């Protein structure tokens, strides 16, 4: 059940009405409704993997309680590692086994040992990377005695499987989400309308911008040799827009849908393409994952309060692991490595926390220096996205080679509707720029307008979604 499908458009109001009209008297009943709805939502993808989700939930829930009940440090540690190994084991089998098996066979073949690796033909359970990370953060926080274990299985299960965030995040923390789940929610008109507005903007980003780019991007990346340098550059640019529209659009819909149920999820994107350097970009892109890695990997490794050499090592580790989290392919690892290289100057020069504020705050336009920094940072991310999108490293290098050819100075692909698409992208960027000081672009836009003009604006977005939708594409991050 995709967020941009008719099924979801029917599912959401039904759950909403039951939640607020039938079970609004008790927090327990509210959670029971959310849990059943979340499991139905997940079963619509593939009901068989529901058992995996249930098992993972039960394991982490039990681990939390056993660790708290145990008087001995050794037993606590044993439960902790059991949970970590099983969780990472599931990820390893479903997501990474084939990659390791074929990579190992590839290495052996270089030494003239021909082996046929045993690979498993299995589909990746949707959302496994996300709900595994939910569970891991919960278990680690209990082990470190930052939180006490949850006693109610229903509350914990809702924390892991709350349907808006189940398949592609944001990756939540027990400290943030569990207290909200434990409390009975009361309806808040402003929060609900804000949620709808955020969902509308998310749908626009996904259906008009991301799906609109997808057709051209697919055409170019599927056959880079058949395109001129200018088209390849356009393809790389459009992919950068596509992945932002796709994933931040998804996040907006998820956060907006959660608001309808009175729940605030973590922010996942903060206008990353207006960043002035790569460090700022990574504070603004997929925030819930970046902070997860920061808190559970970077900080335990010593973080930035160590020697320069160790700081460099930690930075490379976190980016390579982050790349690997995205998928079992060398392209993702290289993408992570590249980002580590991009951020390295600011790590070494200790300028990585230079841009903590919002660019051109309170002003309509950025300064020339800011504009240059934004364009330069965006250029670096576009370059890295080429590796992210390509099927192999070889293909990525060929793609870049194609861009750096004489044909860069030709007229790019004249597809069915690139001009219309570029107009929409321009409008999209303007709206995002105007809303950059808020949680999402539409959060405050039009608040001073007359109600009918504001509604007209929302209708215009709906009409644009209906009439200019791109080809149906699954959300990119569902594959992770």
């Amino acid at each position, binding site marked *: 059940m995709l967020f941009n499908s008719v099924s979801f458009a029917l599912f959401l109001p039904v759950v909403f009405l039951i939640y607020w009209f039938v079970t609004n008297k008790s927090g327990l009943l509210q959670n029971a409704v959310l849990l059943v709805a979340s499991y139905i939502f997940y079963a619509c993808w593939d009901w068989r993997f529901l058992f995996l989700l249930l098992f993972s939930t039960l394991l982490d829930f039990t681990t939390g309680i056993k660790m708290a009940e145990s008087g001995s440090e050794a037993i606590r540690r044993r439960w902790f590692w059991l949970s970590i190994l099983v969780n990472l084991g599931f990820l390893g089998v479903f997501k990474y086994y084939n990659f390791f098996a074929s990579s190992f066979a590839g290495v052996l073949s270089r030494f003239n040992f021909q082996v046929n690796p045993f690979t498993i033909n299995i589909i990746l359970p949707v959302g496994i990377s996300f709900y595994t990370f939910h569970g891991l953060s919960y278990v680690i926080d209990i082990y470190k005695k930052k939180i006490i274990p949850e006693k109610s299985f229903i509350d914990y299960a809702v924390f892991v499987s709350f349907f808006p965030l189940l398949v592609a995040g944001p990756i939540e923390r027990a400290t943030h989400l569990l207290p909200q789940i434990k409390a009975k929610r009361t309806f808040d*008109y402003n929060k*609900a309308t804000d949620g709808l507005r955020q969902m509308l903007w998310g749908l626009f980003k996904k259906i008009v911008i991301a799906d609109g780019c997808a057709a051209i991007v697919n055409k170019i990346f599927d056959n880079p040799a058949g395109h001129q340098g200018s088209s390849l550059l356009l393809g790389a640019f459009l992919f950068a827009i596509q992945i932002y529209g796709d994933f931040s659009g998804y996040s907006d819909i998820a956060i907006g849908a959660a608001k309808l149920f009175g729940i605030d999820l973590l922010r996942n994107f903060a206008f990353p393409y207006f960043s002035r350097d790569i460090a700022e970009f990574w504070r603004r892109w997929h925030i819930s994952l970046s902070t997860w890695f920061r808190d559970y990997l970077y900080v335990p490794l010593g973080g930035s309060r160590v020697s320069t050499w160790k700081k460099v090592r930690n930075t490379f580790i976190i980016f390579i692991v982050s790349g690997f989290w995205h998928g079992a392919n060398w392209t993702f690892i290289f993408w992570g490595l590249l980002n580590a290289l991009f951020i390295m100057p600011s790590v070494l020069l200790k300028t990585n926390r230079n841009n903590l504020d919002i660019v051109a705050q309170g002003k309509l336009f950025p300064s020339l220096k800011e504009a240059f920094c934004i364009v330069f940072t965006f250029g670096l991310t576009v370059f890295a996205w080429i590796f992210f999108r390509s099927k192999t490293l070889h293909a990525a290098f060929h793609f870049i080679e194609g861009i750096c050819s004489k044909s860069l100075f030709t007229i790019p692909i004249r597809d069915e509707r690139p001009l219309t698409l570029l107009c929409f992208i321009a409008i999209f960027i303007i709206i995002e720029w105007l809303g950059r000081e808020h949680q999402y672009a539409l959060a405050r836009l039009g608040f001073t307008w007359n109600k009918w003009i504001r509604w007209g604006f929302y209708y215009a977005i709906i009409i644009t979604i209906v009439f200019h939708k791109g080809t149906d594409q699954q959300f990119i991050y569902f594959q992770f």
Partner: protein
Amino acid sequence: MKKFIVTLIYFFFPLLIIGTIMEVSLRKIPNDYAYKKNYLDKNADKVQVLILGSSHTYYGINPAYIHYNSFNAAHVSQTLNIDWAILKKYDGKWNALKYIIIPIDYTSLFESLDLGVEKWRMRDYDVYSDISITNDFSNHFAALGNPKINLQRLYGFYTNRNYTEITCDESGFGTAYKYKDREKNLDSSSIIAAQRHLATNDNCYQQNISTLDSIINFAKQKDIKLIFITCPAYDAYTNLLNNNQLTHVINCMNNLSRAISNVSYHNFLKDSLFSTNDFFDADHLNDSGAKKFTIRIDSLFLH
């Protein structure tokens, strides 16, 4: 909460009204799908020869030249699972049915409309033919189809008296090629068609074989003769076809016809009876080609 619901109703009311008007108006536009459904609803018990399949038979077999009471229930890109759905839909009504003709062409065993690039047609089957293959709830609503095309259809139908979406005659035979110029360059269109028809995976193969089994059992139980055919195609096109894929299809159908008594298979792909003038494009017959082909098909029946 009350304020929220009231605001929502106010906000969505105009959209709901527009959507409902569009849905009702779109459903009133006569088209092939609705025509064929209405015809079979009324006359399935009188049909003696039923022609199923894709555009190859839709434009290629004209019931006017068949001596039995025949109906062409084929349609553009119609795949085996829809043929089977049509047969099932009127189960119990096929009282007079003697022959079923189903084309098994180069791609037939490797495609399924609901999974292909023309899956948007599934909505037409859902809305107008009352045939539902997928679980996609949105396919039940005409208004949720391509909005630009919907607007064009509405504008065409409600502003132009001569507007029609029915492109078949009374017997279900496709007449669109009668009024169109034939493809100017058959050789170049052959290259494009052959590329398009190359099976890129065999995901649908097992499902199609099992559908064939179901159709065969269905026909056997009702003592109906099942005639599988491979339709004629232009030389340049047939020469470009992948030999493995083609041989696989032909062998599969020959084996079936040898093994099962009520099944026969006839391969007209490279039949010398058809010349360049008989083709509309690389893999479709034109009107005169269809006449020749139908007479040939008619000779297969026991009169």
